């Protein structure tokens, strides 16, 4: 690695700087919409980053990650509905519920490999989706409106657009920092080793399933936090939060940005959602362009944004 910034680091640094300065831009130009858009982007970037931990580093191709968004979201929504407004209760419950779901789903799914794993995670997420649709008390199919955002006793005001944005950004950067530490830790090396060659790892003495499961749970818990943020952002939760296309979107963000790179999912989320926004302004039929674009990215853009930048660095 050479001294100074390489292209990947430069893009990562610029993205972070841009995200930090965004409220200033929004304030100066009076463009509130951009702040709303980017709050959503930052939250989904966090979900994508958590997915990248198992997909990119752990080699576990989960097609059901949106379930955690829903679980985290519903934890907040249901508690709010039942009169528990404090974020100090709502958020830990959201995390714990996501972790618990991940433990159960992970223990069952990790018995399978490859496509079967992709499909079983998808199936479990669909199950969660139908459970939510069946919650008559909490809106069923129609979803549940959250009348009051999580209350943090004056510490942060989630109804304040800028404060909420910075809270989301802090969560995202915190998650990325945590993932960075994890992937370089003993645990992270084991998980990456398992992705690379499970038989070898078993032969030198690592119980594969245990490490994979813990990784799966960490990822799910982080995504649950993103779900709690998302529920606060939209003031609304519905089964659609965990529909399978949402899981697909998250996968797209990870791969678009560069699977198994630290900042890839963030770059991917920004690129995907901004593109979606821009295309939908150009034409009502934006997916007509987005769809084939994804195909082209798969066919020609190996390694996503970060992979392409990496090739640039190596010349």
């Amino acid at each position, binding site marked *: 690695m050479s001294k100074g910034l390489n292209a990947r680091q430069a893009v990562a640094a610029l993205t972070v700087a841009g995200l930090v300065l965004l409220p200033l831009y929004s304030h100066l130009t009076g463009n509130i919409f951009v702040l709303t858009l980017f709050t959503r982007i930052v939250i989904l970037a966090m979900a994508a980053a958590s997915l990248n931990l198992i997909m990119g580093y752990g080699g576990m191709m989960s097609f059901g990650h949106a379930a955690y968004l829903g679980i985290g979201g519903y934890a907040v929504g249901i508690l709010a509905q039942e009169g528990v407004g404090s974020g100090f209760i709502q958020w830990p419950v959201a995390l714990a519920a996501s972790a618990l779901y991940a433990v159960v789903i992970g223990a069952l799914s990790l018995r399978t490999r490859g496509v079967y794993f992709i499909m079983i995670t998808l199936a479990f997420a669909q199950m969660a989706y139908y459970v939510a649709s069946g919650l008559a008390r909490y809106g069923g199919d129609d979803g549940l409106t959250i009348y009051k955002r999580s209350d943090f006793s004056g510490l942060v005001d989630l109804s304040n657009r800028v404060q909420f944005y910075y809270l989301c950004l802090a969560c995202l950067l915190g998650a990325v920092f945590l993932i960075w530490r994890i992937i370089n*830790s*003993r645990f*992270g*090396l084991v998980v990456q*080793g398992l992705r*690379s*060659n499970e038989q070898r790892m078993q032969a030198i003495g*690592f*119980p594969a399933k245990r490490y994979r499961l813990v990784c799966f749970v960490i990822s799910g818990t982080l995504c649950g936090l993103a779900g709690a943020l998302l529920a606060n952002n939209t003031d609304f939760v519905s089964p659609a939060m965990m529909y399978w296309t949402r899981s697909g979107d998250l996968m797209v963000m990870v791969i678009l940005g560069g699977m198994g790179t630290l900042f890839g999912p963030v770059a991917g989320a920004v690129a995907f959602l901004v593109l979606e926004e821009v295309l939908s302004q150009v034409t009502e039929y934006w997916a007509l362009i987005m769809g084939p674009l994804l195909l082209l990215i798969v066919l020609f853009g190996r390694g996503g944004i970060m992979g392409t930048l990496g090739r640039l660095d190596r010349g």
Partner: protein
Amino acid sequence: MAEPLLRVEKLVRRFGGIIATDHVSLDVAQGELHAIIGPNGAGKTTLIAQLTGHLTPNSGSIWLGGRDISGLPAYRRSALGLARSFQITSLLTDFTAADNVALAAQAHDGHSFRFFADARKERGLREAAHAALERVGLTHRADVLVSRLSHGEQRELELAVALATRPKLLLLDEPMAGLGATESGRMVRLLQELRREVSIVLVEHDMEAVFALADRISVMVYGRVIASGLPSEIRRNEEVKRAYLGEQHVVVRHG
């Protein structure tokens, strides 16, 4: 006679109608280098896979240091001092040589549920890795990605990884496979040194190497051990000559 380090009793493994391991019994004494030879398809790799726990035998038992390990998963056997090298090089190709060895050391240094500290900066692990790399003469290639190492270097790294788990017994599945004459010579010298420290089960096609290294040799044909004894005995054994050594030239070409 003292309890053997490894004792295999009446091991049987079938694949459909084929018996790949046919009531194999085998003893490996402490400090011994025990070679297993036999033509291709004799079931040597299947036997190794059962010893390491990657394959479950249909019946029979495996004892390591007086303990029945037949039902233990691979990682538990590794913890008890069993290490292996793979016939087809099986390393973490997207990791550096040093990382490969350090992970092996890490596996035997407490649990790895440590999430925050940079494992590549743990001195104990790095030193263990460098010691093992030095042992096989790869120190200068420590920071090279495995995918960029030569075939010979990868074979040596396989050994270093096995050594880093500080094994009691090394199972080497054709460590010379695909090596040139110079590299083979180096490997033989390396094994010559290692055998003083650790007991070894060596599966190998290179007869010259086997007869130079082994204390005892077992000959497998069609899943069965047809002879077991000192190299000189094996050389004289008529059945072995008929079944195997007579067509050695054919086997070596296949190897």
